[in-house]
């Protein structure tokens, strides 16, 4: 039974499930550090997925798809930044509104632009190639899984240590954390909380856009209505569970991706799809309850001060 479950194919599907979650969660982490409670990753990711397919379709080139995806993510992030930072709106209400807007807007544009409903597949849509890294990809098991991924997957993995360095070792990271912790203190030393918060929200727009591109051009090559299907929300929980620390966020993303990959596999083994689909969220729920106190502290940090 276990031999059938745990093989390289499972780990490949775990890594694929992980990339979008990790990209979005890293963006959410930056926002968390800047004191913006970011829950609009779901909408940014979905908009990014749609734009990625549109861009790739127009140019028959996945590169333009990625550019479009980033643009869409940034566009949504600007709405969030304007509402939550400039106008001091409630980021939770705004986030939910943006997430719902993304579902509605992509669902509306799909038939308007491409003349189909539900799922859009086309030979013009150029998917992201898998880039096998020479030598490393020949390592049995791990190599074929970790070193035979899309460019966005490598970006996601590299960002984990890079963001750690930026956050904890550079002036810009210190200021970002300062802004998130005590905006007034930062301002009194001449660091603009508004500028840093805008920067953080836009960065999360870029990363969630990339997450969408990976989803629609990497994991599959198509756009399906509501195809982000909760991954943005899982990323929100990954930020909390990882206490906005790059390596811990990576770990949390891996946990949720594992649940998703395992669910997918169990589905193949005959479990009802409704149950396997629920698995990632069941894990999320357990994680939420298990780490309740941590969330209390984090929420305290973001809403207070």
């Amino acid at each position, binding site marked *: 039974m276990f031999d059938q479950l745990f093989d390289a194919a499972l780990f490949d599907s775990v890594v694929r499930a992980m990339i979008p979650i990790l990209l979005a969660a890293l963006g959410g982490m930056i926002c968390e550090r800047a004191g913006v409670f970011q829950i609009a990753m779901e909408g940014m990711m979905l908009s990014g997925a749609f734009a990625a397919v549109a861009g790739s379709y127009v140019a028959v080139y996945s590169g333009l798809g990625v550019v479009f995806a980033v643009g869409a993510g940034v566009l949504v992030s600007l709405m969030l930044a304007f509402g939550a930072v400039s106008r001091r709106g409630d980021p939770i209400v705004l986030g939910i509104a943006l997430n719902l807007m993304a579902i509605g807007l992509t669902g509306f544009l799909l038939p308007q632009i491409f003349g189909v409903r539900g799922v859009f597949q086309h030979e013009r849509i150029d998917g992201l190639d898998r880039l096998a890294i020479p030598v490393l990809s020949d390592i049995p098991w791990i190599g074929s899984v970790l070193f035979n991924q899309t460019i966005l997957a490598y970006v996601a993995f590299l960002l984990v240590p890079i963001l750690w*360095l930026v956050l904890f*070792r*550079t*002036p810009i990271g*210190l*200021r970002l*954390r*300062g802004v998130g*912790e*005590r905006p*007034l*203190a*930062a*301002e*009194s*030393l*001449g*660091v603009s909380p508004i500028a840093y918060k805008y920067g953080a929200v836009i960065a999360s727009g870029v990363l969630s856009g990339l997450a969408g591109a990976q989803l629609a051009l990497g994991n599959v090559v198509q756009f399906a209505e509501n195809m982000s299907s909760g991954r943005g929300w899982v990323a929100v929980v990954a930020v909390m569970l990882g206490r906005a620390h790059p390596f811990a966020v990576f770990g949390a993303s891996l946990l949720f991706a594992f649940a998703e990959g395992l669910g997918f596999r169990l589905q193949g083994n005959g479990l009802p799809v409704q149950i396997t689909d629920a698995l990632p969220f069941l894990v999320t729920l357990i994680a939420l309850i298990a780490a309740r106190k941590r969330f209390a502290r984090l929420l305290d940090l973001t809403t207070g001060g």
Partner: protein
Amino acid sequence: MSLALEFRGITKRFPGVLANDAIDMKVEAGHIHAVVGENGAGKTTLMSILFGLYPADAGEILVSGERVRFTSALEAIRAGLGMVHQAFRLFPTLSVADNVVFRDEPTRRGMIDRAAGAEGVGALAERYGLAVDPRAVVETLPVGVLQRVEILKALYRDARILILDEPTAVLTPQERDKLFEVIRRLRDAGRTILFITHKLGEVMAVSDRVTVLRDGRSVADLVTAETNPTEIARYMTGRQVDLDRRAPAHEAGGAVLTVTDLTVTGQHGRAAVKNVSLEVRAGEIVGVAGIAGNGQSELIEAVTGLRDVPDGSIHLHGNDISTSEVLTRRLAGMAYIPEDRHGVGTSHLATVSNNLLLGHQRRDGFQSKGWFDRKAVRHHARRLIETYGIRSGPINSPVSTLSGGNLQKVVVAREMSHGAPLLIAEQPTRGVDIAAIEFIHDRLITFRDDGGAVLLVSAELSEIRALSTRILVMFDGRIVAELDPAEVDEAAIGYYMTGAHEEALSG
């Protein structure tokens, strides 16, 4: 004489208030200059104008003889000004060094050079006698040290003029004396200090000159050595003030509140109150002194029923109320003036009248058939407003429109009109002006003389000494001393507050 700072005819008008009315003030370089005044005298407005938070309607400011008009805190810092705010502006999870170098970080190859930062901050701290470990995380440090970090922030940016806003409000007497030493050392090193306070003893102790503000005007500019506290107080209030009032001792009656072997768990599951026993009798005020965070809040929360009591007992008039609901305790005869008048003491969106009603609403006469008797409610509010001299607009305006002093009077009026034999008073006069302090103190003394029992918690040692029949000192969750206010001075109380007596014993 050279001037470090000069204000010329600064005027600032807010809707309905003239906050600064042609204020003139000259601060000599290398001096410690005190600025005193009651709340609302215009001190805060004047400093906000200096730091560019908002522009003055008229007048000009000169720094070292040059006209300046800052539009941001950064410009003020660059011009050599440093401000230590009353509420510290520090990052709790960052180290001392990171807090100090923030935005002016030493770097090596794009990364923060933490070794250089810690070294620089350490050297600076040593030069001015500001004992602090640069690598310590700020949230683990006591307030006295946090203030040193704030001063270091200003010195790191080479502030020539250091402004301290009510710097002693959070300090023990020992910490205060250390701060004064630092201030003097800074002055001797040629820096200028602007010391904002309302405590006259400190003005006398540390300043070279003093400017008194009242109702937005500068009413006096005095050389400290040539004046005295009574004269300054007269300028501050515009009338004669009796500074050294002392409540005469009184014969206490039977026990009203008895706390026995109480242990309370605080945040993070640590014991915040450890094995505390105390008694408050009818006709006495028991004052609890201590540095904030030594279990006073948790003790009060346990007594009032806001926090569970895992161990020990609380009796009110002989009835065990250790596990009773808040309502049961109140009905048994407990009234409570909470420390946080905004968050706990009042409902800030509700009207003045409704806030005065809170807790009284169940009593007969306020309700009929499930509806409030609006006339009775109005009458109740008007009566309290008159008795307690609350300056408020229409009684149906939100309570948040009241000033701090009047808001506190709303809480005091409501709680003291319950006729409860036990009153818990937590920081009853924090942040209110002298007139309101006098009034609230008079009320507490009258309550005591009428046979009421008061458990008073205050960070203000002068208040503890002026009101208390007995003083209990809390340190590290325990009561470490019981003192007679007639026999001890503030330094002696402070000695116990810091736990110094235990070090003396064990060392």
